[in-house]
C-alpha cells in the first residue's frame, strides 16, 4: 500500500530554502549601516595667505636683501549634509505631509477635489493670475484689474514678460485658449468650466482681456458683478502649445509645463516624494525664492515624526500642535510654531425640512445645549467660541455686519440648558414619562453627524456627546453619529441628516457673502437628491432677495454693508445654522536652515497658498 518515495526528490527544495535564508541573512548583514545621511565637504571660501620672510645677507660690498614670498592657500571648508540623493540640505526645503493619494505621475488641476495636493505641483509649479495672501492681491500672471462705471465689465491687464518653464512666452493666446478649453469641457467637472456660462470675454489686440457679465438665463441682459476679480484671481492659464487637442481628464502633463518658479526634478510614487528645482530663467526677477530645491515627501507615523522633527529632518510637517509644543520644541530649539485661525468657522446645521427642526424655537433650544467653551478646550490649541463670522477680526464682531442687539436677543453662542428646557416647554414639546414628545406625540430622537477626531480635531467630535448628555437631562435623545468623510459628504449633499457639524466659509471680512449665499433657495433640491449647497434645505424669500441684492451690488458701497446687517438678523433669528467655534491650526517650523513667516498667513498645504508662504521664507544665518 505504501510505496516509499524516492529519496532524492525533495532535497533540492530544502536546500533551496536554506540557501535563500542564508543569502538573505548575508544581505541584511551587509547593509548594517543606514545609508541615509551622507556628508560631503564643500569648499566655501579660498583665501590666499601670503607669508613674507625676509632674508638678510651681509657681504663685503653690499647688503643684499632677499625677500622670499611663500603663498599658502587656506581653505575654509564646511560639512554639508546631502539628502534625497544629491541635494544639499541647506538649500533644500523639505515638507512632509500625509500624502494620501495614489496618482503621482499626473500634474493637472482637472481632477478637482481628487487632484494630488501633496505632490507640490499646485504649491510651487503653477502660476495664478493674482496671488492672494493674507488679504492682499499680488500681481503674478495679471497686473491689475479695472471695472467700468456700472460694474458690468472688468478689464484684466496681463503680465507681458512671463514665460513657461520650457522657455516659451506666456501670451494672451494661452489665456483665451484656456478659457475656451475649460468651457468646452465643463461637463467633465474641470475648474472654471462654468465661467463662460455668464461671462463673455473679448480682446483688443493689446495685453488686456475685457470680461462682460450677463444673466445666465438671458445672454442679452447685462448684470453687475463687482466680485469678478476675486473669482478670477486664482485662474491658472494653460499652455496652449501643450494642451491643445488634449483630453483634460486623461492628459498627464508630465513633466509639467507651467509658468511657476519651480520645475519638476522627479517624482516617485513608491515613496511619495517629489523634488522640485528652482528655475534659473524665472521671469519674476524680484521674487524671493530662497530654497533651491523643494521636496514634498510623506511623513511617518506621529511618534516617528516627532523624532524626525527633533533631528531636524523636515522643515515643515503636519505634526499636531500638541505633540509639537510639548515634545519637539523642548528638545529642538530651532522649532517654532506657526498658528493661525482657520478661516472657515465651525457651525451646527439643522435639516430644516424635518420636524421638529422646522421650528425655529426648537433650533434655538438646541443651540443653548452646547457648552462651546468646554468643547473648544478639547482641542489643542483650544478652539474659541464664536458668535459671528470673520474670525480674522477676533472676538468682537464688527457692529456694521452683526448687530449686538441680535446677538443678545437670540442668545447667540450661549450655553443655558435651563433656558432651553423652558423654551421647549413654551413651544409645546411636553415631557411625557421623562421624554419630550414632538407635535405628533412621538418621543424626540435625533442624530448629529460629525467626524472622527483625527480629521477635524477633538472639539468637533466631542461636542455632540456633550450635547447628548445635556439633552438627556431634559428628555431628548441625541445620538452622535461619527461617519467617514465620503459618507459625510454624501449624506450632507442629499440632506440625509438631522443635525450635522459643518463649516461655513464666509469669505473676506469686509464682504462675507460666502456665509449667506449657500442658503439661497436656488440650490434647493428634494431630500435624497444631491444638492450643490444649502444642505439644510432652507427656504426664505427674504434672505434670497437680500443675497441677490448683495451679489449684484458693489462690496465697497455702504448700502451693501447695510444688507449684511439685515442678513445677520434673519439668520440669527431663524437659525438655519448656529455658530460653534473657530479652530486654530498650527504646524511646526524648523528654523535651522530656513526661517519662516512671522505673521499669520494661510496654511501651506492648502493648494495654492504655499506660494504666499514662499514670499516670507528666508535662508537662515
Amino acid at each position: 500500500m505504501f510505496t516509499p518515495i524516492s529519496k532524492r526528490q525533495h532535497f533540492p527544495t530544502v536546500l533551496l530554502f536554506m540557501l535563500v535564508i542564508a543569502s538573505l541573512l548575508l544581505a541584511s548583514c551587509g547593509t548594517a549601516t543606514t545609508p541615509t545621511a551622507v556628508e560631503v565637504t564643500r569648499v566655501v571660501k579660498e583665501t590666499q595667505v601670503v607669508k613674507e620672510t625676509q632674508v638678510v645677507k651681509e657681504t663685503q660690498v653690499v647688503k643684499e636683501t632677499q625677500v622670499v614670498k611663500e603663498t599658502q592657500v587656506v581653505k575654509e571648508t564646511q560639512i554639508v549634509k546631502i539628502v534625497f540623493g544629491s541635494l544639499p540640505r541647506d538649500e533644500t526645503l523639505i515638507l512632509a505631509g500625509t500624502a494620501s493619494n495614489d496618482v503621482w505621475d499626473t500634474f493637472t488641476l482637472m481632477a478637482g477635489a481628487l487632484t494630488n495636493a501633496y505632490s507640490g505641483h499646485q504649491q510651487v509649479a503653477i502660476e495664478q493670475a493674482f496671488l492672494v495672501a493674507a488679504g492682499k492681491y499680488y500681481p503674478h500672471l495679471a497686473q491689475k484689474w479695472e471695472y467700468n462705471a456700472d460694474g458690468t465689465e472688468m478689464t484684466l491687464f496681463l503680465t507681458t514678460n512671463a514665460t513657461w518653464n520650457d522657455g516659451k512666452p506666456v501670451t494672451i493666446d494661452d489665456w483665451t485658449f484656456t478659457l475656451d478649453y475649460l468651457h468646452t469641457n465643463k461637463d467633465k467637472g474641470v475648474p472654471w468650466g462654468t465661467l463662460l456660462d455668464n461671462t463673455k470675454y473679448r480682446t483688443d489686440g493689446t495685453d488686456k482681456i475685457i470680461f462682460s457679465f450677463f444673466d445666465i438665463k438671458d445672454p442679452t441682459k447685462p448684470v453687475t458683478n463687482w466680485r469678478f476679480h476675486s473669482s478670477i484671481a486664482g485662474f491658472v492659464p494653460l499652455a496652449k502649445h501643450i494642451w491643445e487637442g488634449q483630453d483634460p481628464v486623461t492628459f498627464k502633463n508630465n513633466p509639467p509645463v507651467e509658468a511657476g518658479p519651480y520645475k519638476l526634478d522627479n517624482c516617485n510614487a513608491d515613496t511619495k516624494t517629489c523634488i522640485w528645482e528652482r528655475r534659473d530663467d524665472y521671469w519674476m526677477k524680484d521674487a524671493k525664492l530662497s530654497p533651491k530645491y523643494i521636496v514634498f515627501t510623506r511623513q511617518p507615523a506621529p511618534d516617528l515624526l516627532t523624532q524626525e522633527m527633533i533631528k531636524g529632518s523636515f522643515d515643515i510637517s503636519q505634526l499636531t500642535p500638541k505633540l509639537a509644543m510639548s515634545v519637539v520644541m523642548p528638545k529642538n530649539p530651532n522649532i517654532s510654531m506657526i498658528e493661525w485661525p482657520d478661516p472657515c468657522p465651525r457651525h451646527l446645521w439643522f435639516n430644516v425640512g424635518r420636524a421638529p427642526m422646522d421650528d425655529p424655537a426648537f433650533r434655538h433650544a438646541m443651540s443653548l445645549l452646547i457648552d462651546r467653551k468646554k468643547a473648544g478646550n478639547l482641542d489643542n490649541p483650544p478652539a474659541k467660541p464664536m458668535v459671528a463670522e470673520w474670525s480674522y477680526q477676533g472676538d468682537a464682531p464688527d457692529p456694521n455686519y452683526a448687530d449686538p442687539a441680535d446677538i443678545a436677543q437670540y442668545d447667540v453662542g450661549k450655553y443655558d440648558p435651563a433656558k432651553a428646557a423652558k423654551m421647549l416647554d413654551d413651544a409645546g414639546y411636553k415631557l411625557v414619562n421623562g421624554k419630550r414628545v414632538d407635535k405628533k406625540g412621538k418621543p424626540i430622537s435625533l442624530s448629529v453627524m460629525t467626524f472622527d477626531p483625527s480629521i477635524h480635531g477633538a472639539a468637533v467630535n466631542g461636542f455632540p456627546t456633550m450635547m447628548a448628555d445635556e439633552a438627556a437631562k431634559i428628555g431628548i435623545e441625541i445620538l452622535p453619529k461619527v461617519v467617514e468623510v465620503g459618507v459625510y459628504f454624501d449624506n450632507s449633499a442629499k440632506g440625509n441628516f438631522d443635525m450635522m457639524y459643518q463649516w461655513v466659509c464666509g469669505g473676506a471680512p469686509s464682504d462675507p457673502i460666502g456665509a449667506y449665499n449657500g442658503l439661497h433657495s436656488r440650490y434647493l433640491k428634494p431630500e435624497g437628491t444631491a444638492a450643490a449647497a444649502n444642505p439644510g434645505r432652507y427656504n426664505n424669500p427674504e434672505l434670497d432677495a437680500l443675497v441677490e441684492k448683495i451679489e449684484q451690488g458693489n462690496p465697497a458701497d455702504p448700502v451693501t454693508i447695510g444688507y449684511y446687517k439685515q442678513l445677520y438678523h434673519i439668520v440669527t433669528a431663524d437659525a438655519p445654522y448656529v455658530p460653534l467655534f473657530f479652530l486654530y491650526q498650527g504646524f511646526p517650523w524648523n528654523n535651522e536652515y530656513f526661517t519662516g513667516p512671522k505673521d499669520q498667513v494661510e496654511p501651506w498645504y492648502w493648494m495654492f497658498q504655499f506660494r504666499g508662504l514662499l514670499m516670507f521664507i528666508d535662508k537662515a544665518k
Partner: protein
Amino acid sequence: MINFKLTIGILLIALLLVTAIVGPLITPHFFPGEDPTEVGAYPTLDLPSPKHPLGTDILGRDAVVIIINGIRLSLIIGVVGGFMSTLIGVILGFIAGYVGKRTDTILRIFIDMVLVIPILPLLLLLSLYIPKWNIFTMGILLGIFSWAFVARTTRAQVLSLRERSYVDLARLNNEGTLEIIFEELLPGLLPYVILSLAGATVGNMLAEAGLQLIGIGAGLPPTLGSIMGRAYNGGALSLGLYGQLLIPAGILIMVFLALNLINMGLEERFNPRLRQYAEER
C-alpha cells in the same frame, strides 16, 4: 484531572470577565462627584498622575476607566460575533458533513467561496450604511463574515465522527436520525464547538482591534482596539502615554493566551493519542 494549563487559562478569562462586569461599577468611586467617562471632563492627553494613572485620552476622559469599559465593549463584540459565526458555521458544517454526497459538495463549494472572500474590508463598507450602528451590529457583521472556518472544521469533525463505531451501533439499534444526531454526534462535537466559539470570539476581538489600528471602523464607543489605535496614531509614546498603547495590547494578548491555554489543556485531555506520544516516546 484538570491540568495546569487549563486552570491558568480559565482563571485568566474569569479575571477578565470580573473586571469587565464589576469594573465599571467600582471606578466611579475613585472620582467622587465627577464622571470620568464624560467627554471633556479633564484636560486632554494629560500625563499620568496619581489621579489619572494612565493619563487622559484625546477627548478628556480618564484612560483607566475608558480601558476598563473598553474591555466590556470588546468582549461584547467578540462574544456576539463568536456566537453568530459558530451558530451558522456549526449548522452548515454539520449538514455538509452528515448528509454527504451532493449536498456536501455544494456546501463545500459555498464554504470555500465565502472563506476566500476577505471579510475585514467588506465589513467596513457595510458598516457605513447600517442605520443603527453600534457594538452589537458590528459583532453580528463580524460573525456573518467569519463562519466559514468554523464550518470547515465542523464538517471535518462530523465526517470523522460519523464513521465511529458507536454511531454504527446506534444505527443497528434502529435509533432515528434525530436521536443519533442529538445523543451520539453532538456530545462528541461539543468540545470542538466550545473551542470554535472561544476561537471565534477571540478572533473577532482581534479583527476589530486590527481595523481600529489602521483607522477604519469609525463611530463606535471606545473599545480596546480603538484606544490602542488612537494612541498609536496620535503619538502617545512621544507624549509619554505608553500605558494607553501597551495596556490594551496586553489585555488582548492575555485573552489570546488564555484561549490558547484552554485550547491546549482541552486537547491534552480529550486527545489521548497526542498526549501518549508526546509523553511516552
